[in-house]
């Protein structure tokens, strides 16, 4: 029995996605600073900070927000290793690879030569690449803090509060629910196919099997969609999903929202060109 590359990498991908979702939901239920405030405050406040990061044109200002994000994470009991492995390292590798040629090809004042003759690092290239990496790291850290500390249902409630159409919020909620079901189904189909496979499958057979698995999944998805609709109809669905939870924001939530918005505004002001 041989593991085929397409199957294995797909199974790993599905398992990783399910694991990531599980970690997010677990962390969101832990006590902590960001967990204790209203999801609306969290979503609006952290989004405002992300916007401030993209608006700021000074590396020091973006770096200051990055440090603040680390403190927010620590206060919310988000492990540094989680942030490092989930955000900082992948972003550094991805953005670093993208940004590194900019060191050399951005026209400007040479600051460091290389053994390759005319090729040299320019100050503008260095500044631009550093700003890009710091900015992307900071924004990704803030987005990950939002994901890790806010329950998914809280985010949906916040979207409803901000007048996002109820159908869109319902679709987000249902998609989230059925992702896990379909991912689990796909995983089981691939595992069972792999358990029946002896020897090495050639690439075209692998593609055919993956295509058939995807096709079965499509059929199951359509059946599921119809079944869910009938179930909704039988329960008296009228096109809206009322929310029963208390939607009042506390004084503390308003205070935190003010802090987030004010911090963002100050960062934009100081970090302007």
């Amino acid at each position, binding site marked *: 029995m041989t593991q085929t590359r*397409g199957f294995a*990498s*797909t199974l790993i*991908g599905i398992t990783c*996605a399910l694991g*990531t*979702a599980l970690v997010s939901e677990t962390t969101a239920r832990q006590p902590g600073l960001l967990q204790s405030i209203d999801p609306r405050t969290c979503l609006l406040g952290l989004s405002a900070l*992300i916007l401030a990061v*993209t*608006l700021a*044109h000074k590396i020091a200002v973006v770096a200051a927000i990055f440090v603040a994000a680390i403190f927010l994470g620590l206060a919310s009991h988000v492990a540094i290793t989680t942030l490092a492995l989930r*955000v900082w390292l992948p*972003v550094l590798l991805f953005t670093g690879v993208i940004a590194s040629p900019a060191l050399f*090809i*951005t026209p*400007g004042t040479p600051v460091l030569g290389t053994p390759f003759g005319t090729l040299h690092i320019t100050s503008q290239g260095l*500044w*631009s690449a550093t*700003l*890009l990496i710091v*900015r*992307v790291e900071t924004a*990704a850290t803030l*987005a990950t803090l*939002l994901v890790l500390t806010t329950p998914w249902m809280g985010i949906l409630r916040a979207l409803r509060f901000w007048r996002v*159409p109820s159908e869109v919020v*319902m*679709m*987000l*909620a*249902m*998609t*989230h*629910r*059925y*992702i896990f079901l*379909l991912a689990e189904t796909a995983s089981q189909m691939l595992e069972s196919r792999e358990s029946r496979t002896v020897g090495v499958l050639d*690439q075209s057979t*692998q*593609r*055919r099997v*993956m*295509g*058939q*698995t*995807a*096709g079965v*999944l*499509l*059929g199951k*998805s*359509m059946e599921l*969609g*119809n079944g*869910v*609709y009938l179930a*909704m109809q039988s329960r008296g669905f*009228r*096109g809206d999903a009322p929310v029963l939870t208390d939607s009042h924001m506390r004084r503390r939530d308003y205070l935190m929202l003010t802090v987030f918005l004010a911090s963002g505004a100050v960062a934009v002001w100081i970090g302007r*060109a």
Partner: protein
Amino acid sequence: MHIPDGYLSPSTCAVMYTAAGAAWYASLNRVRRNFSARFVPLISVFAAFCFVIMMFNLPLPGGTTGHAVGVTIASIVLGPSGAILAASIALALQALFFGDGGITTLGANCFNIAVTGSLVAYAVYRVIAAGAPLKARRRIVAGAVAGYIAINVSALLTAVEFGIQPALFHNAEGAPLYAPYPLHIAIPAMMLGHLLVAGFAEAAITAALVAFVQSANPSLLLATSGLSTGNDELQGAKSKSLKQLWVTVALLMCLTPFGILAAGTAWGEWSANDLSSAPATSANANLEQTPSGLLRLSTVWTAPMPGYAPRFVKSAAFGYLLSAMFAVGLLMLCSWLAQRIFRQRHSVEISR
């Protein structure tokens, strides 16, 4: 192709949010009309399907693997409006729940992948598969080509958004503030991977899915096929019989002037004038005068075309022909109006 936060300027993000927002609004309204309340679970499950499909790593020639986006098969099954919503929901979930793709760049990602991808895929698929039966091999080819082109157009759009950043947003020294590469670098860098890998992954998975659907449940392809029914033979037979009907109607209209060859008035269809002026026959032999009731009622309604000929037409044969054409046209109009009213009532009942 998922642009993270920080690569695009806030003004670019705002423009892309506006463009994507217009597409979301139009798609939501269209899907509401076409599917009524059914669209909520249908789009949701399809969005979940797109999400899971993105995790499928497909082995590609050359030893590499690539993953599809699923936007092409969504366009083929749901149509462009449904696909725009399903792919956008999947992208929003990736950004908000899995932290993949930025929050400020969500509009750009949705516009590039969901909106542009869906529209391009749908257009290419419809053009190539035009008129092909549901189980035709041409539909598989159309799906594959549509997937390949859609992904590459999306990638090109993403590259253009990256490439305009240094020209539009830089500091006083000329250092780029966001994505640092101009168009002549961003476009080849972005397109190389998509032309050689990602495009083929989308093409392969779409072709495989269309082939599977053709064998397992071809009716799923019906909505965007451009065919009125999935049964091609039945459709052909219907089309043929309809053509025959029209030819027969036209022939009968041409033959209507022969009606004037018949002399006299049909028995029992006399008008008041016929009775008063006609010579005594076995039918009216006992009549001393025209009945008063008949005289009174004969003036209640005056036909616009008495005697099957408008007053301004001098030729009786041409008048007959004109009357036939007018009557057929009037009947078609009544039939069309009745059909329209019935369909409207039917759709209201379904939406309830």
